[in-house]
């Protein structure tokens, strides 16, 4: 009797609401649930409710939000921590859990996969330590090999995909050059095609660490160990000087007939150490992270840095996204992923810090469409999916056996990653509304 009463007293009246579409909807009725359920319990309750209506329902993990915060503990504790009254009927919003539902076959490379780019929904670009770039149409099917570099590729970027026929990609390499490739992804051939660069960008004095393209595709920027960020033109038309160099190369090597060389349009100088990463999210704004412990925002027109965030750690990666595409996420030589809001006046302290990794962070990427989601890859072999609304990772992808060197979103619902185990891994089925 007593037990019963206690049980009753610990029951909460909740109402499940969702913005999801019909198959996921549950009747908007108040249900009494025990207060000690966790996310898993809530998820099974919702699943059972849906299943009662729809017998062909397949169990689906859900995540739950109360007042815009994800539940990561038992409901009781959550209410206590947030000071929400348990008397009235709680309204719990549920979303599909952000977690990969499907792990695709790894695509084996010959060497470490140092760069992954999933900007184009049609293919995945990878850069490898065997100095080759690869284009993967899907898991296990490599359509193009981008060859020409003499050193490990450190970064790949999609330059231009407006053109339906051909796409332009840029690769940065430790041989101090960047190369621009053009290929047609629609070529439906079973065998892989080898592609040679149409343009070689020389000018860096040390390994190029990162490359990023302007939205329009006319320019790319690259960062290097020589502490500079160089901007390059991507068009094929060459000036006189460049053609001369082409002729020279023709004499040396008959195979590189179509290659031209480019020189840096301008250099952004200011960093004092290796510039590890650049992103070019807007027309004339470049963000860069460096081993000199700073994140800078560059104004392309003036060539000056308009923002200088000091972090205290050597940084490996930077990305801009989130709310209004203004939040800066950066990770580096410690296991903490930091997110800054440069719009916030008077402070350079990070607004979010995610610290579930156990080693250096090698990559972080904002989700293209969501304001809240970002991923981070670390040398501890894990990729973590983060939501700004909770300090815990939404999901941990632990498929790599070694360091993860690069990761990116693909098609909005997959995570592609490459690591020191020489594999490209695709984790798909991530439901981000």
């Amino acid at each position, binding site marked *: 009797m007593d037990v019963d009463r206690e049980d009753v007293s610990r029951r909460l009246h909740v109402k499940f609401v969702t913005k999801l579409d019909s198959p996921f909807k549950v009747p908007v009725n108040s249900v009494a649930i025990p207060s000690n359920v966790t996310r898993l319990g809530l998820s099974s309750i919702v699943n059972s409710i849906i299943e009662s209506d729809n017998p062909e329902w397949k169990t689906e993990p859900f995540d739950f939000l109360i007042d815009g915060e994800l539940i990561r503990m038992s409901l009781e504790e959550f209410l206590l921590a947030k000071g929400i009254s348990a008397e009235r009927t709680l309204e719990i919003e549920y979303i599909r859990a952000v977690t990969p539902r499907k792990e695709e076959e790894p695509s084996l490379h010959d060497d*470490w996969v*140092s760069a992954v780019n999933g900007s184009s929904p049609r293919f995945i670009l990878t850069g490898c*330590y065997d100095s080759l770039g690869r284009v993967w149409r899907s898991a296990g099917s490599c359509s193009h090999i981008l060859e020409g570099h003499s050193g*490990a590729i450190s970064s790949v970027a999609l330059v231009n995909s407006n053109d339906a026929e051909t796409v332009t990609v840029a690769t940065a390499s*430790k041989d*101090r050059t960047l190369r621009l490739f053009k290929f047609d992804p629609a070529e439906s051939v079973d065998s892989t095609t080898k592609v040679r660069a149409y343009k070689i960008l020389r000018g860096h*004095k*040390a*390994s190029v660490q990162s490359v990023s393209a302007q939205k329009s595709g006319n320019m790319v920027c690259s960062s290097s*160990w020589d502490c500079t960020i160089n901007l390059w033109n991507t068009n094929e038309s060459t000036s006189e000087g460049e053609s001369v160099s082409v002729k020279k190369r023709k004499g040396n090597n008959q195979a590189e007939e179509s290659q031209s060389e480019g020189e840096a349009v301008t250099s952004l100088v200011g960093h004092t*150490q*290796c510039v*590890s990463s650049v992103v070019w999210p807007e027309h004339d704004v470049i963000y860069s992270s460096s*081993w000199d412990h700073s994140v800078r925002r560059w104004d392309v027109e003036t060539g000056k840095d308009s923002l200088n965030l000091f972090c*205290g*750690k*050597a940084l*490996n990666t930077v990305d801009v996204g989130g709310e209004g595409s203004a939040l800066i996420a950066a990770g580096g*030589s*410690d*296991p903490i992923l930091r997110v800054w809001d440069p719009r916030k006046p008077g402070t350079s302290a990070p607004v979010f810090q995610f610290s579930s990794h156990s*080693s*250096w962070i*090698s990559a972080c990427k904002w989700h293209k469409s969501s304001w809240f989601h970002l991923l981070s890859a670390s*040398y501890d072999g894990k990729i973590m999916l983060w939501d700004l609304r909770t300090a815990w990772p939404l999901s941990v992808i632990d498929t790599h056996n070694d*360091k993860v*060197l690069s990761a990116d979103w693909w098609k909005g619902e997959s995570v592609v990653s490459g690591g*020191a185990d020489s594999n490209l891994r695709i984790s798909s089925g991530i439901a981000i509304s």
Partner: protein
Amino acid sequence: MTKKKKGANEDKIIETKSKNVSGKSQKQKKPVEKELKPVEEGLKEEDLLQESGTDSDYDGDSLPGYLDSDDFDSDFFDSEDDGTQEGTEDGDVEFSDDDALDHEGSIDNEDDDESEQVESDKGEEDGSDEGSERGEAVEESDSSEDEVPSRNTVGDVPLEWYKDEKHIGYDITGKKITKKEKQDKLDSFLATMDDSKNWRKIYDEYNDEEVELTKEECELMRRILKGEAPHADFDPYAPYVDWFKWDDSIHPLSSAPEPKRRFIPSKWEAKKVLKLVRAIRKGWIKFDKPEEEPNVYLLWGDDSTSDQKSKHLTYIPPPKMKLPGHDESYNPSLEYIPTEEEKASYELMYEEDRPKFIPKRFTSLRSIPAYENALKESFERCLDLYLCPRVRKKRINIDPESLKPKLPSRKDLRPYPNSCYLEYKGHTGAVTTISTDSSGEWIASGSTDGSVRMWEVETGRCLKVWQFDEAIMCVAWNPLSRLPVLAVAMGRDLFFLNTELGTDEEQEITKERLHSGNIPEPEASVAAIVTWLPDELYGGIKIRHFKSISSIDWHRKGDYLSTVMASGETRGVVLHQLSKQKTQRLPFKIRGLPVCTLFHPSLSYFFVATRKDVRVYNLLKPGEATKKLETGLREISSMAIHPGGDNLIVGSKEGKMCWFDMDLSSKPYKTLKNHPKDITNVAVHRSYPLFASCSEDSTAYVFHGMVYNDLNQNPLIVPLEILRGHSSKGGVLDCKFHPRQPWLFTAGADSIIKLYCH
């Protein structure tokens, strides 16, 4: 009349004696004392006077003169005081009375013939002289010393209390009277010689002053000594008042007159005294020694209650307990009983402020309960008896932490390497040596498996492997970024490897430098030590030494390289010049076995560490060492120099590390003993104030080593972190800082290189 004369004469003799004058008429010369002695001594003198005047220490010269006649004597007195003339007549009047008495006395005193004989010996006297003396005494006021209050007011206390003080007492106003300075004996003697009145001077101990006795006082004393009435005006021979009526009595009680012996000093007594005096003088009678103050005190006595304390002047007795009043009665009047409100207010008070006793009423004695604190107090008493310490100890309670030197918090000294995130795996043997390239992008490592590997710092990727046959002893990147050459030492060979990094132009220069086509002929002096050879294996240059290489160091300009051959003795250190491809010996002699060498980071100094010392040579000035740093270590294993060039760190095989501030001293500024085993290497960061040591105990220590530009401020050394992680077998063999980040690379015998980040 003769009797009178006799008495007067006797008086005269004493007087002359006391004035240091001896009458010629007397049978014996009278001894003279310079100062009047107390009565006891006077007795002795009298004895001398009568018995053995000749043996006295009398000195005739010091006397003012001899009195030849009585007249002269009287003159002497007259001249002294004119006032005495007047009294002479009175004296005469009195004297006649005396005369009468004498007559009467002499009748019975026949048996006392001895005294009579003596008296008869004395010379004739005339009565006027005697009378003048007496009259003088009469006129003198009797209590002169009472009128003059004494200077000192200490009262009747033993003067030895002030023996050791600077003062003798206090005057009437309460001020201290300081002692006079003691006169020199010689001075005082001379003073006495000069002063004719000296014989009358007495030292008054009580007032600490010299008192000059007046003549009257002298007379007074003489009388006392003689046993006479002190005052002259006392008449011993006053006329007898016969109160007895003789007329009626048939048989008188006694018709005998007063016997003479009653008023004459006993001769036999004098003889007895004389005997005693003689005995004392000859030492037959020994007096007891003066009793010494017992120098003991009650050790266990309570100070507050001891007698000594109570005897002391400043003793203040403790206040007596208040007697119980009405309120402490068992049944006090109602007005003593506190009201309810008062009781309540007592409850609110602090324990200390609350009154100790609150009156209570009991109707009868029987109803009084037992003392409530009885048990508690008896318990406390028991604890007292057990010497149970219950009060707070007065022991100084020093927190051991507070004795530690004040060091800044580690948090304030960030960044420093503290956790390992990256490992560089690939070697199959113990990694003996690592070196970072100047940009910090690459590191090179050498291992006992004979391989030299080049790693990408950022990812831990091994980029290049050079395989050799021998275990690698040393690798060193050329400090110039434009000359990406790696020097590798193994066994007796030194290789220059082209890392194939850098731009194309840089590569061309590098290849040119490492071109082995035209190696010049070696100079004769070094031909026996080294040979430059082309390296067939990797197309560079190799230098073959005559002994195995133990250590190498690049000069900052990247052209010179020093190699150390530990067993090479005096030829153990050579300098190679890469651009000219030649070798030279050091322009100075090395004493002892060289262990490692260092180039100064900015000047032309060259450090050579032998097993026990570090010597600093100037490369431009050949000759002796400019400085010798005494480490005090048993065996030096490694050293590193601060980029400023003034501070040197030396690691030793006994686990000690010395920090030398070369501006300060040739002795270590600090010696740090941290490692239980050999220190294998030490490193200093190029830009951050950090230094590190690694040891065979498989730990690496990171220190904060701040060097200030201010010469007055000594370097600040703070231990920061112990870096563990390498497996315990073999320890950590090398450590190097990242050139730009506060990171530390450690090479372990477990074939792993670790990167510790901040």
